[in-house]
């Protein structure tokens, strides 16, 4: 059972990593602020 539990945790960690990549804000920061500059 504990193995199943750890497998579940592993799957959860991978899903979290994938989902967080998907919902990362795509707003630009200073590293690529060119469009921000021209936009204002």
């Amino acid at each position: 059972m504990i193995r199943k539990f750890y497998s579940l945790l592993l799957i959860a960690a991978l899903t979290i990593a994938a989902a967080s990549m998907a919902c990362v804000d795509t707003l630009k920061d200073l590293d690529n602020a060119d469009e921000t500059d021209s936009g204002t």
Partner: protein
Amino acid sequence: MTEGRVRSDEGSEGADASAVEASVSRAVAELERHEGAVLAGIVALVVVVLLPVLGFGFVYDDGWTFTANGFLRQPGDLPLLLSDEAARRHVPDAFRPTLVLFDVLSYQLFGLFAPAHHALSIALHVLVCALAQRWLRLLGAPLTLRAATLALFGLLAIHAEAIAVVSFHEDLVAAALGLGALVVASAAARARTRRGRWPRAAAAALLLTLACGAKMSAATLPLLWWLGESLSPWRPPAARVAGRVRIAVAVTLALGVGLTVVHTLATHGALSPYAGASNLRLFASRVGLSPVLAMSTQIHLGYLQQIALPFGLSPEYVDAGASWTAPATILASAALLGLLLYGLWAATRRRRALAAWAILGAFVLALPTANLAAMPNMRADRLMYLPSLPICVGLAALALAIGRRLAAAARAPALAAAPIVALAILQGALLQATTRVYRSPGALWTIASQRAPGSARAQAIYGEVLLASRDPAARDTAADRGRVASVRAHCRRALEIDPRDELSHLCAARLAIAEERWAAAQAHLRRALGLSVDRNHRILAALAEVSLDVPGVAEDRRRDAALQHLERATREYPYAVEVWTTAGRIYHRLGDPAAAEAAFARAFELGPERPESTLGAIEAALDRGDPTQARRLLVERAALLERADPTTRAALEQRLWDHLRLFPPPPSLVESEARPRELRLDDP
């Protein structure tokens, strides 16, 4: 015949449901045999999700409270926190002595190595999770609920700000010490002898004193403890702690809070360090308390939504008032009142004790930051760090209950964990995504100014950040002119939104300085100084420097004005690195090398990681004809100077080289200077 078949089907369904229930119970029993491994696995998941935070830098208030806070470099001055002297000298967060002590220790251990401080944040968060779990265990909560709460609280997305920003250690330290106090208090209440009870109760009170010394939001924890022990959601009434013991321990805890209150009153003259009708940073000072409280009901309903469904999280919110007759206020007030009444009803009838504890617990923990006492930020995600704990317990219980029903209905035991797993994954994914907002000042204020475009603070600070990020090598290029135009737009927007915010004027002043419009810069800085009630060191330092450059004013008047601002800045903010670096530059410009070098030496003492003071000291030494001192600084602080602007560093090295070539020092002196190590290729 048909009737018999229906009965047979019903019997089969009942048997299936029992089988599912039995299967779930067997799985739970097996997990209970490995309790430590289960909890450790969840903690490991929380740590793994938070690992990207280790790559983040210092943001937000980290400059004021940590990276440029000279007090942290003077551990000998710590006793000042026990008197009003710390507040008088504007020690950052002087009203949170435990936090300052913690920061001094962590700085002495890790210096300004950001990954170590972020690792400390993760460790503190894990400690909070572990202590919460431990306290729930003492209250009798089953493993499934504790594990589910651990996962949910550990991965809650609204915690991103509190965990990812180093200067918000205040929330984590207060929660860790406060929950530690509750654990010890519950152990004290269960002690069988007086000798076992009272030392523990005293230790709990001391921990709570320290917790409130980190942040006053821990002040209502005794009420949470009282609710937990009185409602006793997981133990039969007969197994509860005796009433008189509960009262005695709760009073001891309250005394612990009282001690911090007395200390704050004695050292600050008021319970809130922000108090004062003249403080325009407090929105209540502008519009009165009533509209702020009306908006606070909407804010708290918003918090509840963000905890349950983590959308709309932001590093910045716009302060605003609201009318009590506005539909949003009525709706929010009705919802909160309904919850409160339900919680009270459930508590008095002792029905649904868990729901009562979760609701009333969240209410009491939210009280200190509910805007009843005016705060500079009406709303911030970090304010929900501690109040979210009872909500997480309630949500975890709800998810587990739904899971059991789901498993029984679908005849699939594995589905029992589905709701809590889905909730934890949702929260964890958004936690990891949200923390990235706080990776750098540029990222933070870009997103803050876009999520809260109506915030003067966000617009002004974003303008300043953009200005500071100009590449000196690319001045007057098209990209640089575009950046300056962008800064102008953000500063103008900030002034339009709130002309009474000192940050708007500071942004305009920085822009004017960059464009060498000295009179405009001075006017904006004076206005900023008039509006600001605290943290004036940056304004005073800039004002002193600008005063020397204002055209059309006699030289002696400019000099007097600069020295006057400087004297005030060094007197009022003796621990601000920026003030002493500016003092060094000004004394140097005024032809007082001894005072300049003394100021640069003090700046280096308060901020040894900053190369500006050393560059200034080398320049001052060269100007007074002391190349030996300049060379000594260049060699001794070579590693530090690696971080300085290469153009400035190269120019100073060239000056020193010319000096040594034209006026060579006696050979014996050169030899003794070179003795500690072999000269390198890049040595001057």
